[in-house]
Structure formats: C-alpha cells, structure tokens
C-alpha cells in the first residue's frame, strides 16, 4: 500500500460517519513534520463497528482523535450526520462532542486521580446534562450499573481504589452518560490483563446493543479487532491498506501487510505451524520521511519498481473487500459494477 | 534553532536593560545629590551643567536609546559617582566574582556528587540518613551566619586564612587560593545541600531504571554501574539546577563580598544601588542578565552533550 482512493466508501447517506482524505501532520523539533495520517478515507454506518488495526505508529490513534477534532486534522473532511466537523467553530464542535465520545487506552490515566468516581461520571452532565443533583445521581447510577459497577460502593471512592478493568468500566460509563451515537475506543483493552480484556470486550458488545452505539474500535491486536468488529480497516504508516468485513479479511487477506500481520500474530495453539523465516528487515520506516509510492514496499516481499513510483489505489478484490496494492494476494475482481450491491456487514 | 535562541537571548537582554533603566530612573533621589557636595548644590548653574554632562535632562526614552546605541559598541557609559567607565569596572571585577562563583560551584559539586551518589546507593540506610540530615542542616544555615563563623574560626582563632580582602591570581597564586577559600565555602555549603539532594533523588530514580537492572544482570560491579551507567542520566536535573543557581549565586555573592570585603561585581552593584549610580546599575544588571542567559544556553548545550536524545532533536 498502502495507498489512497475512495473506492471502498459507501454511498453518501448510508454512513453515519465518513472521513475523506484525512491528513494529520504535526511539526517536531528540527523543522521536520511527522506525517501521522496521510489522506485516508473510510466510513461507518449507523450501528456498525469499524475496527482500525495496525502497528504502533501507523496513525490509528491519531485518526481516532482527529475524528473528534482533538486536535483538528490538517486537512480532509470528517462528516458526521452529513455535517463536516472540521468546518465547525470551536464552540459548535464543543457542542457536538456529546454525540461522539471516546475511551482511552490507559484506564487509570484517563480518570482524574483527585476526584471521586461519582463526580467523574457526572462531569459530562455538569457540562451538558441536567444540573439537578438528584437527576444527575440517577443517571450516574444507571450508567454505573450498566457497566457493572455498584454505584453505592463506587460513588465516593477515588480511581486508585479500583483495578484497571474497573477503571475502564468507569471510563466507559462516563463516555456513555450523555448517550452518544458514536463511541471511539482507542486501544481500550491493551493495558488490561487477558482475563479482564474479555470482560471489557463483552461489555462493549452488550452496551453497543443496549444503547444502539456505533463503534470505532482501534487496536493493534488482530484477534481482538476481529472479535468485536463488523468491518476492519488495516492501516500502515498513515495509510489504509485494506478494508473488508472482518471474517472476509482474516480468511482472505489481500494485502501482503495484512498477511504478514496474520502470520506474525501468535496463536495459542501449538499445532499451528509457525513461519520461522528470518525476516530482519521488517522495521517501520520513519513517518517523517515515508517511502515513495506504496509505503509498505520497503518491507514487502512482492515489491517491484511500480511500487516505488506509483501509489496504489483502493480497488475491490471481493465483495466489500478493498485493497490498495499493486500486487494483491487475491485476484482483482472484475471492474466493480457501477452500482455495487452492499451487504449488511 | 540557534538563531531562535539568539533572538530570544537578545530580546531578553533588551527587556532587562529597559526595565532596569526604567526602575533606576524611578528611584527617588537624584544621582547629582550624591555627586555634588552639599555646598555646591545651591549652585544651580553648576548643577545644571553637570546634569547636562551626564545627559540627565533628556527624556528617558532618549537617554535609553543613547545608552543602547553606546552599549552595542561596548561603551556602557561612565559611573556618575566615580566617572570611571562602567565596562572597564565590570571587566576588572568579573574575574573575581567569576572565580568565587566557579570555585563555589566546583566545591559544591565536588562534595555533592559523591555524597549524593553514596546516599542514593545506600538509600534508607544510616549513611543516607546522616547525609540527608547533614544536607538539611547545612541548608538551614544562612550564608552570612556561616561566613561570620568561618571568619571567627579560620581567621581569628586559627589564623590560617585571611579574614578579608582579595589577592588576584595574577599577583600570587597561593594568596589567591587563600583568599577564595572562606568566601567560596560560605557560598558553597547551601549549594552542597541542594546538589546532594538533587543528585540523590535523580540517582534513586535512575537506579530503578531497567537499564540499571540489566547492567546488574550483566554482572557489572556496583561501582562501575554507579559511575559509568547511573551518574550521567542522574546529572540532568543537576545541570539545570546549577544553571538556574547561577542567578541565585550572583545574589549570594553580594552578601559574601560585602562580608569578606571582596571587590566583586555583586558588591559593586549593591554600592551602585545605594549611590544611585544608575549607569553602573544598568551596566552590571544587563551584564548579569547576559551572563545568566548565556550560562543557561550553555546548560542547554551541555545537556545536549550529556544526553544524545536531545542532541538529535535540536
């Protein structure tokens, strides 16, 4: 790829959130610019869970934050309900925040250590919701119950009295208390122990149903992303490589990078035959000075001249399966029909 | 990067010089009063002439502009009181204050680094507790009290060292060493305490780093780990603190130079303020600001030399 293009976007109106040509760059010392996200596009339908997967430094978290304009992207559009969030004034955007919420990787760091849990969860209500204390309490209690925390026990405790898993529950409660439509989950389970991780993943699934949420789930763990997502976008160095329904993507990876990820992903099964080939050149290039053409070419076994000269565009390789690669691992389907048929993911 | 730093340096100095100029001019009392003997003060013509000579009749902004123009060429004007060139006065006194400050810093680092390292290595042990207690006690003794004490013990009782005065290095090396010891010690003791604490706390957190553990797991000796692996990362805060303390040290030399009758910059500044010797105040203040800003720029450079991670960013 990792390339550009919008072939994978669905017709306007189907998508609750759609991102077009999102670019996020920021300066660093020495006059350089980190090209964290370089023109990506994707969309999410109402009620869908989109998984963003990729290794550290691929720009997935930056993308997540750019969606809620924290900070605003360098260029590109983020449409939410057909409104371009990047064009809103700061104040108007602040008002929109109730609809798009976010939970973070480090459950402990995302709660203010000096405040009580009750206050933390009520904080969004102080900003937007009812100021009436009794109403607030009722809402907070409901939400804490929903995430599996006993409000009577937790209300007057401070975050350090809770485990990581519980903190993540509290933080989910806080993000849901305003009943947002979209919940952006930025690596919500990667700091948790595996036994707790499953609890949170289950909880998110449950809450999604209960509150009719649209999820954007960002993670580096392929198995986790697959488990929770309807559709998965694989990112590499600020670009999207491949987008597909989650089962399709994992069964038929079309991009060499996706395949590399799958091969590398450890399976708790000693019968799986490991790829023991000794690839040592596999290192992420600098986002300050990314490779020309396909950004994955420096690590790609299939790379040739065209990969360095031309940036691959998104093309459909299967039903709702798009890849940006000059040499996809599965044959390119016939030129997409003028009016593709979309299946419910 | 360097250019930006330079711009900031110049801007800082400009602001400092302007603020000083303003403040000194706000001071009650006219330098002419200090200059002219009482009998001559009723001689209006004479006073006027002097005012004109020192440019005291121009508006403040004009005077500042004139001063700045001269200052750029290295001419900081003449003292109103002694009519000696300010720049010359600064250069004459700089080696003394600089030596005093450097020796004080040297003393304190020489004592503080091993002490702080030992203290961190033996964290919680009796050695550490004694060192920390000693550091706190020495931090509690004001330097003028210490100076009086040192004079009493080493000059009056033991008669090992001179109580006052200064022998320049160019005159006599041994005399110079003798005259610097007591004042430098008076300045250094509190610094020792501060630096020991800084080294200790940085060293403690460094010793908890994984790379110290991995160095131990390599089978290296503790002493080697302490001085070859732990010291450098533990000196970053120290470098910053030393840089910042240069400012405080110049303040400290005022008292010590007064007490020990040492002809340094600090004492001259104090005298100048009392005498309303405004060009002298102006000159020394700006000079001190230049030194301060330069030293802190140097600190940044040393930082870069010590920490390759920063070197890369800049």
């Amino acid at each position: 790829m990792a390339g550009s293009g919008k072939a994978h976007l669905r017709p306007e109106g189907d998508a609750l959130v759609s991102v077009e040509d999102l670019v996020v760059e920021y300066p660093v010392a020495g006059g350089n610019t980190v090209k964290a996200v370089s023109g990506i596009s994707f969309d999410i339908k109402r009620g869908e869970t989109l998984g963003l997967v990729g290794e550290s430094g691929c720009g997935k978290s930056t993308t997540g934050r750019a969606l809620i304009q924290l900070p605003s992207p360098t260029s590109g559009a983020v449409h939410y309900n057909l409104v371009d969030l990047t064009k809103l004034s700061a104040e108007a955007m602040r008002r929109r925040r109730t609809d798009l919420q976010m939970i973070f990787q480090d459950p402990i760091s995302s709660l203010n250590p000096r405040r009580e849990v009750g206050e933390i969860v009520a904080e969004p209500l102080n900003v937007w919701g009812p100021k009436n204390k009794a109403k607030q309490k009722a809402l907070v209690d409901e939400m804490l119950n929903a995430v599996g925390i006993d409000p009577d026990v937790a209300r007057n405790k401070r975050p350090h009295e809770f485990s990581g898993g519980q903190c993540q529950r509290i933080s989910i409660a806080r993000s849901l208390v305003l009943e947002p439509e979209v919940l952006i989950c930025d690596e919500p389970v990667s700091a948790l122990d595996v036994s707790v991780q499953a609890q949170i993943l289950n909880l998110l699934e449950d809450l999604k149903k209960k509150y009719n949420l649209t999820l954007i789930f960002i993670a580096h763990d392929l198995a986790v992303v697959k488990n929770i997502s309807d559709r998965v976008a694989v990112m590499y160095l600020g670009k999207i490589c491949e987008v597909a329904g989650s089962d399709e993507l994992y069964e038929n990876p079309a991009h060499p990078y996706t395949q590399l990820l799958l091969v590398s992903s450890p399976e708790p099964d000693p019968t799986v035959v490991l790829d023991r080939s000794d690839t040592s050149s596999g290192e992420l290039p600098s986002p300050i000075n990314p490779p020309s053409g396909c950004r994955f070419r420096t690590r790609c076994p299939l790379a040739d001249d065209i990969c360095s000269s031309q940036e691959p565009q998104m093309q459909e390789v299967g039903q709702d399966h798009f890849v940006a690669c000059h040499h996809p691992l599965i044959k390119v389907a016939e030129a997409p029909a003028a009016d593709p048929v979309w299946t419910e993911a | 990067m360097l250019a930006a730093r330079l711009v900031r340096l110049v801007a800082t100095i400009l602001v400092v010089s302007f603020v000083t100029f303003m403040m000194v001019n706000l001071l009650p009392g006219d330098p002419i009063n200090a200059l002219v003997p009482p009998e001559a003060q009723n001689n209006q013509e004479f006073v006027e002439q002097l005012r004109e000579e020192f440019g005291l009749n121009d508006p403040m902004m004009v005077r500042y502009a004139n001063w700045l123009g001269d200052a750029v060429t290295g001419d900081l004007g003449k003292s109103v009181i002694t009519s000696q060139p300010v720049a010359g006065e600064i250069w004459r006194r700089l080696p003394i204050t600089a030596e005093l400050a450097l020796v004080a810093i040297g003393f304190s680092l020489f004592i503080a680094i091993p002490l702080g390292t030992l203290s961190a290595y033996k964290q919680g042990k009796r050695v550490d507790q004694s060192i920390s207690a000693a550091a706190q006690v020495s931090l509690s003794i004001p330097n003028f009290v210490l100076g009086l004490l040192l004079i009493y013990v080493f000059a009056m009782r033991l008669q090992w060292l001179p109580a006052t005065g200064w022998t320049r290095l160019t005159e006599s090396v041994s005399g110079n060493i003798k005259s610097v010891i007591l004042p430098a010690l008076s300045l250094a003791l509190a610094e020792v305490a501060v630096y020991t604490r800084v080294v200790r706390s940085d060293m403690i957190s460094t010793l908890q780093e994984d790379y110290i553990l991995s160095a131990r797991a390599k089978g290296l000796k503790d002493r080697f780990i302490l001085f070859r692996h732990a010291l450098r990362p533990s000196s970053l805060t120290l470098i910053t603190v030393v840089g910042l303390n240069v400012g405080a040290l110049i303040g400290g030399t005022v008292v010590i130079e007064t007490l020990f009758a040492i002809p340094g910059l600090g004492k001259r500044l104090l005298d100048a303020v009392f005498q309303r010797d405004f060009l002298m105040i102006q000159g020394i203040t700006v000079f001190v600001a230049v030194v301060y800003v330069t030293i802190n720029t140097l600190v940044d450079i040393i930082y870069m030399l010590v920490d390759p991670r920063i070197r890369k960013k800049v």
Partner: protein
Amino acid sequence: MNASVTVNSAEASANTNGASLLQVSDLHTSFSVQAGEVKAVRGVSFSLDQGKTLGVVGESGSGKTVLARSIMRLNLGDNVNTSGSAVFEGKELLASTMSEMQTLWGNEVAMVFQDPMTSLNPLVKVGRQVTEHVRHHLGASKAEAKALAIDLLKEVRIPEPESRLNAYPHELSGGMRQRICIAIALACEPTLLFADEPTTALDVTVQHQILNLLNREQQERHMAMILITHDLGVVAGRTDEIMVMYAGNVVEQAPTAALFADMQHPYTEALLRSIPRTTQRSHTRLAAIAGRPPDLIDPPSGCAFSPRCPYVQPKCREETPPLQATDNSGHKSACWFPVGTPENKEAFEKNLAARLPQTMSVAEGAMVNTEMLQEKAATQEERN
C-alpha cells in the same frame, strides 16, 4: 540489592544430585510493604535441563517476573525476603554472595528484559553496552571485544553492525534494540537465558521476528531458556514445557503439547477461553474470567483461584491443592477438581444449580456481569 535470603539447605543438598541445569525448590519471595507482606512467589519448584525451553505464563501479579528475579537474585531493595532453594549447575544461588553472583550474571546466566526502550542505557553507545561485560568477564581486549560485538550483531541480524556500535539506543528502532539486548545476553555464551516478556513492548510483526531469533539462538547454542510471558500464544509453539502461574503458585505444568491438548486446571482453561483468536468468527462471545486477580497481601485461603473458579467447592476454599502429576507424561496440576474429570463435571452442575455467578457466566456466556455481583456479595458479607 540486599534482599534477605533463606536457603532451604536440606532440599538444596538433596537436589544437587539431579542432573538438571537449574533446580528450583519451594521458592518463596515476599516484599514487605506498609500494608503488609506481598507474597509474590509462594512455593515454586521446578527443574530445567540443558537446552530446554520453559515457558512461564501468567497474568500481571502472578509472580512470574519475581520468580525469575528471585532465582537470579536481582530483586532490589531491603524489603525482599526470599527462601527456598535454587541450584544452578550444582551451585546454590540463594546462598551465593553478591560477588559470586556478579561472576555468574551475564556470564553463565543472562537475562533479556521486557522493554528494550528502557533496558538499554540511553546515554551510552550501543558498542560499549554490548562489550563492557565481555571485557569484564572474559578479560577481552578492546579490539577483541569489538570484534565479538560485531559478530554478535551480525548474529542477531543487525545490518551494518560496525556503524551501529557507535549509535545511541534511541537511534535504533524497538526491534533493533531488542536484538541488541539479545546480543548482550548472548555475548558471554550463557548456559541459561531468562527472557522476561521479551516481546510485550513490540509490535506483532517484530515480536514474531524476535521470538524466531530467540528460538534459533537457543537451539544453536544448546542453551536453556526460561521464556516468561502473559500470552499463551507466544509460548504455544516455542517451548518444550509450560508452567502456568497464578497468584504466586504454579497451577499447572506440562509439556507444551500436552498442556494445550488437555488442560487440567480451571484457570488455564479459562485463560485460553477468554482470549479472542483470529480463527474464531467475528463477534464470538468470549468466556471472560469472573472477578479479578487476588490480593497478594492477603491471598484467599485454599486454592487462590477459588473465588473466580466456576467449579469451586467448599474444599477448594479450605485446602490448597498440591501440584501433582496426574499421569506419567509429566503433566502436573494443582486442582482438587481437574477439568475433564467427572468430579469437575459434578462440581459444575452443583454450582449451576446454586446459580454461582462465575459458573452462570460460563454457562450463559457472561450476560451477567459477574464482577458486579461478586462485589455486591462481598459488601454484603462485610456488612454482616
């Protein structure tokens, strides 16, 4: 640096007869903190033969890292108490002086740490970090050490090794740094290598490379390796034997294939079931483990897993099950009602009938949040 050590001398001498490279018996480690004694390792015994790889698996707080550091005597601070025995090549490590340990460290026993970002000194050039202990242990000259370093860097597949020697760690990527760490560990040709979560901080593609590298080196050098990880996937294909730890105890120990084929301990089973896999369909309901890891200052009586175990019986809460072999294959587990046995099934039925939350959650696919229920029950108890 000054941990207190009590050597179980009777056992120590008994075990020196064994041919094992490393023989650990009844190792206990605890940390005294203000709130009490943190019992991090509570009686671990195992042995490891030359050239073998042992995987130690457990969640955070299970004691796996402390175990490794206790054997290596690398625990820091005055508040560490270690007892038991750890015999390495016939030498009782827990009774050795620090200077004896210093000759072993890096030389005979080496360690690769979790985070290559922090386990290399950021202010020291790579070259010196690779060679300093070589010079120290083997008395190599500067030139010899440098030549060795270049060889090592080649060995761990670092391109342009000569120029890398002059680099500072921050100039290298995470994978490169971990390769350097491995090179450092291998430099003196140790016979035992501890790899403490060597890939946790790395990306999945790099993790794969590093694990391959460790495997290869271990086999080529016929070195014994203890691979510590929280990820069953990491140890699955790369170890001879696996030891599962929970709350400072070994709950199950078996040859790798045997373990995955026949999980006996409810914790091992639950752990495996709670991990999402790429081979599962999307939206597969995960079997989460109820509750949270125990408090190590005041661990639960009986089996430490009992409060979270779907098969828990009164006996489990009262008596600590010993780690014992169930057959001749070397498969050991510490459970009164091992998974797959009729007793286990019976216990499950009983609990289901009693609507025990953790059992319900397994049965119903965790629709009920068990943690909440448990917490409520606990508060209830407290009130009573």
